[in-house]
């Protein structure tokens, strides 16, 4: 790190500048990528992205995969809306999913046999956006008095209340109406089914491909709207409030108004997305709008980079597609080992020899363990067979090599659990030591990790997905806290 700090520059800035200069001089990959990306015209980025996305139905011949692609679009527009509230205006809104639910339930009530209402889509969409935006105003009003953690608690409460209402509003007693039985509004845990498909100008969206293109257009419109909003006096005022509310106020920004506007815009986007979701799924159920969705959305925004439009998009794409890839154990294996090898090479990119030594060490260690066990206790081991279904596929060689290298105990569950504890313990111990001894401990730790992966994780994709999510976020926050597309931020002293 160079030390030629300029006069009057504070230390952090000087370090950051030095880092930037260093990166520039070394022509680092990240720096070059960033510069190349910045040079692309935003319109070109959008067009290229749309063109790629429009090709998906031609490449994918499986309705399930196309549904995943459609969900990716919905998640992108949801995280774009969340980005307005949490990213631009800096308001930690944990009740965001409630608006998604309100939008979806509103459409389901107005366009389904549940109340025998079949309102046209072009009428329902603006109406639902209006309803959600109004709810956004309601939730936004406490934000005028609350900041940070307190706002988070209040909004989280709102989200929970909405979820409980969706679940329990199937037996509502209304006064003065003298109904013979309680009114069923949301259908409770059974939800509302047979929701109408979207019909626009006599054209019905009734299959996955059509919905996919509808979602594509919808998401593109939201992206453009929010991108434009970000680069206007409103977007600037939002960011000014995030940076320094008091200064923004004294510079003539009406903080109350703009905070409420941020909440309503976010809520409106979520509500509109809810409409599309309800129509596409043809039904709405309470778990579609629970805290899990909120967590995934926040992960998307944080991973991509808080407060950036492209970050929300990339976060949405990565976190929608990755879990689907992990569903297939063979594909999951590819991703796991690829990430492991690339991760080691990346971490040791300045000391390539050490990195290679570590990789080689793990492989040799595996062979040694296998040889030792086959010699001493052959009865403990089994030799798994490759299923015929994948014998011809392109990952068969990898699986074969793995089977040959890795030990496969009879009681894989029990041994796997023990290995999991051992792996964590070794990693923790390794962290305490310095340099050479640490590397020596990394070898058995990494081996134990791959063993756990083979015996336990690959068999249970649902748990593995969550673990990978968590690991990804932990790594990201450690090495690139600003997210993929974010700019490094400075905290005011």
């Amino acid at each position, binding site marked *: 790190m160079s030390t030629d700090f300029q006069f009057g520059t504070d230390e952090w800035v000087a370090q950051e500048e030095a880092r930037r200069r260093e990166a520039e001089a070394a022509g680092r990959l990240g720096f070059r990528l960033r510069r190349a990306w910045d040079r692309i015209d935003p319109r070109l980025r959008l067009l290229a992205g749309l063109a790629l996305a429009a090709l998906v139905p031609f490449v994918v011949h499986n309705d399930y995969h196309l549904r995943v692609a459609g969900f990716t679009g919905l998640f992108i527009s949801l995280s774009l809306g969340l980005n307005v509230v949490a990213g631009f205006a800096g308001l930690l809104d944990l009740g965001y999913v409630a608006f998604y639910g309100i939008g979806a339930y509103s459409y389901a009530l107005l366009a389904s046999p549940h109340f025998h209402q079949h309102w046209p889509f072009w009428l329902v969409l603006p109406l639902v956006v209006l309803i959600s935006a109004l709810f956004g105003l309601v939730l936004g009003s406490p934000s005028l008095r609350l*900041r940070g953690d307190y706002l988070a608690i209040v909004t989280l409460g709102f989200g929970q209340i909405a979820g409980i209402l969706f679940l329990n509003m199937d037996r509502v007693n209304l006064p003065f109406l003298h109904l013979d039985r309680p009114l069923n509004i949301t259908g409770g845990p059974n939800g509302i089914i047979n929701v109408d498909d979207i019909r626009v100008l006599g054209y019905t969206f009734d299959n996955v491909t059509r919905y996919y293109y509808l979602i594509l257009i919808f998401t593109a419109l939201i992206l453009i709207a929010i991108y*434009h909003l970000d680069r206007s006096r409103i977007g*600037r005022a939002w960011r000014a409030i995030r*940076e*320094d509310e008091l200064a*923004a*106020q004294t510079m003539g920004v009406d903080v109350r108004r703009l905070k409420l506007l941020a909440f309503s815009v976010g809520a409106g986007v979520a509500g509109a997305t809810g409409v599309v979701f309800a129509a596409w799924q043809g039904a709405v159920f309470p778990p579609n709008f629970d805290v899990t969705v909120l967590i995934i959305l926040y992960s998307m925004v944080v991973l991509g980079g808080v407060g950036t439009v492209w970050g929300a998009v990339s976060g949405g794409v990565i976190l929608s597609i990755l879990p689907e890839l992990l569903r297939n154990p063979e594909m999951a294996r590819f991703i796991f080992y690829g990430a492991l090898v690339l991760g080691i090479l990346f971490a040791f990119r300045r000391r390539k020899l050490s990195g290679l030594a570590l990789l080689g060490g793990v492989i040799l260690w595996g062979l040694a363990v296998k040889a030792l066990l086959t010699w001493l206790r052959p009865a403990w081991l089994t030799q798994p067979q490759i299923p015929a279904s994948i014998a011809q596929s392109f990952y068969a060689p990898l699986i074969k090599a793995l089977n040959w290298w890795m030990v496969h105990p009879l009681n894989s569950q029990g041994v796997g659990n023990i290995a999991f504890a051992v792996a964590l313990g070794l990693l923790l111990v390794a962290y305490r030591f310095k340099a050479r001894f640490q590397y020596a401990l990394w070898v058995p730790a990494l081996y134990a990790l791959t063993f756990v992966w083979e015996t336990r994780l690959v068999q249970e994709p649902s748990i593995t997905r969550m673990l990978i999510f968590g690991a990804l976020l932990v790594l990201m926050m450690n090495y690139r806290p600003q997210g993929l597309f974010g700019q490094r931020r400075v905290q005011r002293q």
Partner: protein
Amino acid sequence: MPLLETRGLTKSFGGLTAVLDLDLKVEEGEIVSLIGPNGAGKTTVFNLITGLYLPDRGDILFEGRSLVGLQPHEITALGIARTFQTLRIFTNMTVLENVMVAQHCRSKAGMWSAILRLPGFRREEERIRQKAIRWLSFFGTRLVGYRFDQPAYSLSYANRRRLEVARAMATEPRLLLLDEPTAGMNPHETQEMTGLIGRLRDEAGCTILCIEHDMKVVQGISDRVVALDYGRKIAEGTHEEVANNERVIEAYLGRKRACAKPGEPSAEPQTQT
């Protein structure tokens, strides 16, 4: 009619009286310096004028109109801008954006015209940009060109002060409140800032009320000096008159029999973060 007038302005925080019965007049086109030892209530006066605090008693008149009870942004819209003693720039926004934000109350494009990029919006956006560039060029070449798109945190301390002044000027004020504009600057930069404050009045037609500790700067810029101590006005007049005033000297240096006064908290408003 004076541009700004306070009548019997009083503000206390619990048992501490920060400002007491302050009568202050600033005429159009004047440069008035507000001096006083630490904790004398100078910044509190600024916070009262800009609407960050509500006075306990008294009135603040701007062009004959009472400011008491108005929101800070409404006061800015009327034509009062300020800078902060502890810098409060928008750290993670670009230099140009920092100044463009200040045009918020002078522009009116709504959400839909921004989303649809209507011609009116484009024209207004271009106007905002030009104004911001104009105010940044006020400081010579320091804040222009490649600086526009740099994040504000990359600026040096003196440049941050300049940026704050440019941002305040971009709200198109009639009255500019400067809170220690030369704090933390080296002698050369201080001298330059002194000249600049004069130019703000002469070229931009701004009336200026300025808190300043550096008596050289005060001497260089002020038409009139007002001295505060314990929230009270203790002297008023030209620089010579105030500088030789016995009570002012006493307030700064203390009398022989007076004990050292305990330190008082800064009057800068705190925000929760």
